[in-house]
C-alpha cells in the first residue's frame, strides 16, 4: 500500500488533535504545545511519529491525573491485553476516512473562505468545522458540522484563555463577519473564537433557507396591520417550513439554548481550550448565562452585553414604551432638542392618531426593493420603525426630526429613513430563530395578549404553539462564582436597564453592573467606553474595572427641525 505524504500529515494533525482531546483541563496548554511543534517539522513521516508520541504523552498524563497508578504499569497492562495504541490508531484512521457521527470533539481545519479578508489578516485565521451530535441524548443520530473561525491576536504570542464571542439572534450568522470582528477585538491580546450556531450562517442544518423570502410579505403585513388574517398568513408560512424540516428528517427538539450551550462546550473541547472568556451580546447573553450556569469551570470570565433574559419577560411593547419615554424625557432636558421639539412625546402620540386616520405614502429608493418603490406608513409601521431606531445611537440625533417629519405629513424628508427601517432590518435565519425561541420561551406558546401592539405581533405568538414543545429552558447563573460584567444601555428597547440590573443582582456578588447613558442595545458596538471597560474586565476579571468613562458619554447632537428645501 502506498500512502501519500499528504495523508501522513493529515493523520499527524488528527492524532495531535486527538491528543488535545485526551488532555483537557489543566494540561490543555501542553497539548497545544505538542500540536504546534508539528508546524515546525518539515518531514511528514517525522511529523506522524511526533504525533503518535503526543498521543502516548497525553494518555500518560491523563492516566497520571486520574489516579495514583503508575502510567507505565497501566500502559503495560493495556498493551498486553490487546494494544491500546492499536485501538486508538484504528479509531483515528476510521475518523480520517470520514465518520457518520463524531465520537469526540474534533476541530477539522479547512482553508478559510471568508469575505473581505485583507492579506495581512489571512495568516491570523484558522477556519474549520466541528461536528457536534445532533442529539446529545442519542449519539447514533448523526451530527451537524458547525463553522468555527479562530482569529489569532494581532500581537503574538496570544495570551492564554481566548475570548468566545456569542452573537445575538437567535438565528444570525457570525463567521461571515470574521474580518469585521478581527478589527474590533474584545480583548486585543487574546485569540477570538467565532462559531455559527447550529442552523445559522455556514453551520448545519440549513433550515428552510427560503423562509426569509416567503415571510417578507407576511411580516410586512403584520407590521402594517393587526388583522387576524395577517397573523394566519404568517403562521401558514412557518408551518409549511416546519413540515418541510420534519420531512427532511430534522427533529425540532434538537434546537434551543440548552442544546446550543452543549455545542459551544463541544467546540471548546475540540479546540483544546482549557478555559475561555465568554462575551455574549443580546441573545448571546442568554447562551452565555446558561453556559456559566452549566459549565462554570470552563469559563474564566463572562461579559453580558445587553441582556436578553429568560422568561418570564414583560410584553415587548411595554419595554419599548419605557425606552421611548426615556428618550423623549431626555429630549425634553436637552437644550437643542427641546427647542426644536418642545413636546416630542405628544408629537409621537399625535402622529399615531393621524396615521390611523391617514397613512402616509412614502417613496423609497429602488435599492430598498419595495413594491412600486413605495411604503405606506401606518401607525403600526411607524411604531415599529421608531422602536427599531432606538437600537442604534447613531440614529438618535435624527430621530426627533423623523418623528416630526411623519407628523407633518412630509413624505420626502426624514420620514423616508424611518419608513425604510423595517425593510432594512437585518434578517437572521428566521426558521432557526423560531426553532430556538419556541423551545426557550413558553410565553410565545400562549395566545397573543390583549392589548398587544405591533411590537408584540412581530413575536412568534401563533407560531410557537404549532411549531414545537417548549424545551429545557435557558438559565440565569444564580450564585455563580465566575466573574461577570453586565452592560446595559439607557434606551435599550429589548431589556430595561432595571431588568439587567435585576439579573446582575440575581447572579450575586460575582456580577458587576454598568449602565451606559444615551446608548441602546449592544453597548460595546456603539460605545468606545464600553469597549474599553469590557477589554479591561476580560484581562483583569478579579479587579473592579474603571467605569468612570460611562459617566462622561458625549451628548447627542440633535439635529434641528427639518425644513423642506
Amino acid at each position: 500500500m502506498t500512502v501519500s505524504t499528504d495523508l501522513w500529515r493529515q493523520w499527524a494533525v488528527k492524532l495531535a488533535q486527538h491528543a488535545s482531546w485526551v488532555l483537557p483541563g489543566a494540561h490543555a496548554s501542553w497539548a497545544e504545545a505538542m500540536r504546534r511543534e508539528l508546524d515546525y517539522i518539515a518531514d511528514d513521516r517525522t511529523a506522524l511519529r511526533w504525533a503518535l508520541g503526543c498521543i502516548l504523552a497525553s494518555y500518560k498524563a491523563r492516566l497520571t491525573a486520574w489516579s495514583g497508578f503508575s502510567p507505565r504499569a497501566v500502559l503495560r497492562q493495556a498493551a498486553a491485553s490487546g494494544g491500546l495504541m492499536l485501538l486508538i490508531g484504528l479509531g483515528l484512521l476510521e475518523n480520517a476516512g470520514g465518520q457518520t457521527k463524531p465520537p469526540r470533539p474534533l476541530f477539522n481545519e479547512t482553508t478559510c473562505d471568508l469575505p473581505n479578508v485583507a492579506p495581512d489578516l489571512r495568516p491570523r485565521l484558522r477556519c474549520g468545522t466541528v461536528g457536534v451530535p445532533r442529539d446529545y441524548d442519542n449519539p447514533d443520530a448523526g451530527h451537524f458540522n458547525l463553522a468555527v473561525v479562530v482569529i489569532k491576536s494581532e500581537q503574538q504570542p496570544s495570551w492564554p484563555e481566548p475570548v468566545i464571542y456569542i452573537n445575538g439572534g437567535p438565528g444570525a450568522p457570525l463567521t461571515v463577519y470574521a474580518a469585521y470582528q478581527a478589527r474590533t477585538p474584545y480583548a486585543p491580546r487574546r485569540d477570538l473564537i467565532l462559531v455559527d450556531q447550529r442552523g445559522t450562517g455556514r453551520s448545519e442544518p440549513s433550515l428552510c433557507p427560503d423562509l426569509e423570502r416567503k415571510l417578507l410579505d407576511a411580516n410586512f403585513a403584520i407590521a402594517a396591520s393587526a388583522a387576524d388574517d395577517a397573523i394566519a398568513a404568517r403562521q401558514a408560512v412557518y408551518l409549511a417550513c416546519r413540515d418541510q424540516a420534519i420531512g427532511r428528517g430534522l427533529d425540532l427538539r434538537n434546537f434551543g439554548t440548552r442544546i446550543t450551550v452543549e455545542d459551544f462546550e463541544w467546540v471548546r473541547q475540540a479546540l483544546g481550550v482549557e478555559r475561555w472568556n465568554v462575551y455574549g451580546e443580546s441573545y448571546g447573553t442568554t447562551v452565555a448565562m446558561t453556559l456559566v450556569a452549566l459549565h462554570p469551570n470552563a469559563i474564566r470570565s463572562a461579559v453580558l452585553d445587553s441582556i436578553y433574559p429568560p422568561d418570564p419577560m414583560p410584553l415587548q411593547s411595554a419595554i419599548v414604551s419605557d425606552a421611548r419615554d426615556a428618550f423623549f424625557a431626555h429630549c425634553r432636558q436637552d437644550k437643542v432638542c427641546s427647542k426644536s421639539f418642545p413636546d416630542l412625546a405628544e408629537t409621537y402620540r399625535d402622529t399615531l392618531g393621524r396615521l390611523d386616520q391617514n397613512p402616509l405614502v412614502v417613496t423609497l429608493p429602488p435599492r430598498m426593493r419595495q413594491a412600486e418603490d413605495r411604503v405606506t406608513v401606518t401607525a403600526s409601521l411607524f411604531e415599529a420603525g421608531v422602536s427599531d431606531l432606538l437600537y442604534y445611537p447613531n440614529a438618535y440625533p435624527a430621530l426627533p426630526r423623523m418623528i416630526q417629519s411623519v407628523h407633518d405629513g412630509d413624505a420626502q424628508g426624514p420620514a423616508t429613513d424611518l419608513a425604510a427601517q423595517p425593510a432594512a432590518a437585518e434578517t437572521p435565519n428566521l426558521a432557526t430563530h423560531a426553532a430556538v425561541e419556541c423551545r426557550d420561551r413558553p410565553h410565545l406558546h400562549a395566545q397573543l395578549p390583549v392589548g398587544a401592539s405591533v411590537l408584540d405581533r412581530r413575536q412568534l405568538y401563533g407560531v410557537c404553539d404549532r411549531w414545537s414543545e417548549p424545551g429545557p429552558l435557558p438559565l440565569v447563573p444564580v450564585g455563580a462564582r465566575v466573574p461577570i460584567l453586565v452592560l446595559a444601555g439607557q434606551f435599550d428597547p429589548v431589556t430595561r436597564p432595571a431588568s439587567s440590573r435585576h439579573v446582575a443582582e440575581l447572579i450575586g456578588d460575582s456580577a458587576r453592573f454598568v449602565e451606559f447613558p444615551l446608548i441602546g442595545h449592544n453597548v460595546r458596538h456603539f460605545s468606545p467606553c464600553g469597549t474599553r471597560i469590557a477589554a479591561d474586565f476580560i484581562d483583569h476579571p478579579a479587579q473592579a474595572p474603571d467605569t468612570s468613562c460611562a459617566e462622561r458619554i458625549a451628548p447627542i447632537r440633535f439635529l434641528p427641525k427639518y425644513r423642506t428645501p
Partner: protein
Amino acid sequence: MPMPRKPNNSRQARALFAALVDRSQTWRHGYDLAKETGLKSGTLYPLLMRLSEQGLLESRWQEAERPGLPPRHVYRLTASGLVLAREQELAVIAAERAGALA
C-alpha cells in the same frame, strides 16, 4: 494527600537535564530538545510536564520566528532545576570517579 515526588534520575531525565543545563539561559523548543536528546515526544513531554509541576522547569509561549507560523512553547530550567541538574552532574562525576577507583 500530595503525591510523592517522582525521582528525576532516570536515563531520559538525565539526558533532558543535560540538554537544558548546557544552555541554561536559552529558551528551548520541544522538537529541538527531542532531536538533541534522542527522546521521542511520548517520553519527552511527560518529563517536561513533570518537571514543570515540580517547579524545576519554566515555560512560556514564544512568538514565531517566521510569519505564518504559530507561537511555540519554550522551556528552560528554573533556579531549582539548575541546582538539581548541577547536583546530578556532580553525582555522575562522583560515581564515575568511584567506578574508576574500584
